[in-house]
């Protein structure tokens, strides 16, 4: 084995690959929980590690050791595979997003389309998870997730296309490079697209006001009602990775991604920017009540889709590129 292949394996497994991304996922779950708690004048995680920073990891390990119950009537194969897919899909997408340098681990022309595709697959996984549990609450949750996707999938894709048109490339790494060489962040050029992306990300991650598929007081835990033990641990990990993915995508497409500023390495700027995005998500999820599913879908089509189209038209007219 040559040193080069060894380095590549190290990159994929440790930094900036799987291990680093898992650590980041747990860190951002802690940031999100802590900030949300402080906004709501609670304490949040407190005991595990300094200020409870290890709490997400502890939760994960605890769930791994818990009993794993599969309902009698459940479709066993789908029920087992759904959590695996739910955790793996955002991880796969994260290899495409630049983390530690301007270039991502894997890059090819058109990887932006691949990210869109995996995010659609994630919702499909959610639907399958709800469907295969054969519980009424899970089924309603799964159907709601699918319905919700009809609402946000179009505007989020349009919001991803905006920076691509401006950069003239469908590769996320190229979009990042274009922003850094032309010395302008897309967020200043296309503020509408940025706002649409943020709102749709909230819906994608099932945060308030769009936590409709897992509305606790309405349908228990929604599509994840029947999952327990290892499967629930994987679902939680997938959720955390999704948070990292959403903030990383926002950072790459709109905030110029990882930048070398003076002596500060790119990964640090990346973490500062993504942490800022996570803080924004936490603040947004604290200040709303939950929408009803019909209000959410009609609101998305009435306001967000026209706004996203307007942004694309503006770019075509030469404003914001």
């Amino acid at each position, binding site marked *: 084995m040559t040193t080069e292949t060894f380095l590549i394996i190290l990159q994929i497994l440790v930094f900036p690959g799987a291990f680093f991304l898992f650590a980041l996922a747990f860190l951002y779950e802690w940031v999100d929980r802590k900030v949300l708690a402080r906004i*709501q004048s609670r304490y949040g995680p407190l005991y595990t590690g300094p200020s409870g920073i290890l709490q997400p990891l502890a939760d994960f390990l605890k769930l791994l050791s818990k009993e794993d119950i599969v309902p009698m009537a459940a479709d066993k194969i789908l029920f087992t595979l759904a959590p695996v897919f739910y955790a793996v899909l955002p991880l796969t997408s994260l290899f495409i997003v630049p983390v530690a340098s301007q270039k991502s681990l894997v890059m090819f022309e058109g990887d932006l389309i691949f990210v869109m595709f995996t995010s659609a697959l994630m919702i499909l996984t959610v639907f399958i998870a709800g469907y295969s549990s054969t519980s*009424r609450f899970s089924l309603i949750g799964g159907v709601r997730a699918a319905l919700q996707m009809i609402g946000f999938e179009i505007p989020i894709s349009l919001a991803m296309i905006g920076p691509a048109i401006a950069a003239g490339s469908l590769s996320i790494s190229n979009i990042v490079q274009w922003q850094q060489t032309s010395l302008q962040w897309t967020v200043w050029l296309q503020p509408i697209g940025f706002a649409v992306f943020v709102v749709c990300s909230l819906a994608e991650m099932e945060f308030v006001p769009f*936590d409709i598929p897992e509305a606790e007081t309405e349908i*228990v835990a929604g599509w994840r009602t029947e999952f327990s033990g290892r499967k629930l641990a994987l679902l939680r990990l997938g959720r955390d990775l999704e948070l990292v993915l959403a903030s990383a995508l926002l950072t790459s497409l709109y905030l110029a991604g990882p930048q070398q500023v003076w002596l500060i390495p790119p990964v640090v700027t990346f973490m500062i920017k993504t942490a800022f995005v996570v803080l924004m998500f936490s603040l947004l999820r604290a200040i709303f*009540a939950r929408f*009803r599913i*019909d209000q959410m879908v009609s609101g998305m089509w009435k306001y967000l889709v026209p706004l996203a189209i307007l942004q694309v038209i503006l770019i075509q007219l030469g404003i914001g590129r």
Partner: protein
Amino acid sequence: MRKVRYGSIIKVPFGPQHPALKEPENFMFEIDGDIVVGVHPRIGYNHRGIEKAFERRTYLQNIYLAERICGICSDAHTTCYTQAIENLLGVEAPPRARYIRVIIAELERIHSHGLWVGIAAHEIGFDTLFMYVWRDREVVMDLFETLSGNRVHYAMNTIGGVRRDIPADTVPKIKHGMDFLEKRLKYYLNVVQNEQTILKRTSGVGILKPKDAVELCAVGPTLRASGVKNDVRVDDPYAAYDEIPFNVVTHDGCDVLSRIIVRCEEMLESINIIRYALDHMPEGMIRVRVPMAVPPGETVSRVEAPRGELIHYAKSNGTTKPERYKVRSPTLGNIPALCKMLMGAHIADIPIVLAGIDPCFACMDRMTFIDDKTNKKWVWTMQQLRRKTRK
């Protein structure tokens, strides 16, 4: 109602264990698509045999039993109980005791409504408002601790008056707490009336027309939110309510939003009542001594509990224990109206409509034996009841 059908009707159970219900009670919903077309309440999961227990204890012990009918409106139940027994005995509480009863009852209304506003916010997924309201509700709980030594079961009432006086040095503390709460409540009222997501989830949801509300015997804030002016404190004044000026808050929105607004404004009204009562509290003794045995007779006593009209019935036989005691808690009065509100609601609206009546199922559940074929009724003894619970 919608005419379009989306295929088969599915039955969705709510409870006895469900995150939206804090107490065990079962509702079977028939859902067509996303719309509720049938509601079947099944009450009685939390029957505690409390009326039977009343017959086994002396009148003095029963005060503490009455207090434990409900954890939230504990003072309303003891006020109602002591009033009933005072009626039978033919004694009246001294004026100062009656003012103290008003102050405790209104403090309780504030904490009960505050608790409810928090829960309503939680039901529509607004956890931040939930945490904020409950944080500020602590002010009232602390005041209760100062006044009575307890946060939940205050044990202030006794037959013939109250057990503890409100000393002069705690009056400024209460007033200070009231000033703080008034500021916060006005802020929350503003939030509820202007925050778009709350308006979207609550206005026009769970409609109860005034005519239906009266016909289905709705009580309390649920009735007043349908625009009907009905309040035991005014209609049949007890304690010192006949001497204290206050408004009966009504709202004619008939939906969940107006239930929230009515409760918020009632809290503000309660603050004014407490201020007036503290300023005009007469001097004097706080209780009169009463005999242990109660002469034979029967009586009905009414109180406006935070959730609505509370009715106690007592029958005495000349001994130290009641012969029969009956409690009708406000939640039971609101169940038929609740079923009416839920018809035509979306699945997502079920929790907030359910919570809209401020249900307290544990206080509500009573039991009676009826053979529905022969229409035969019978009564169990305490031993039979115990044997049943141990099975």
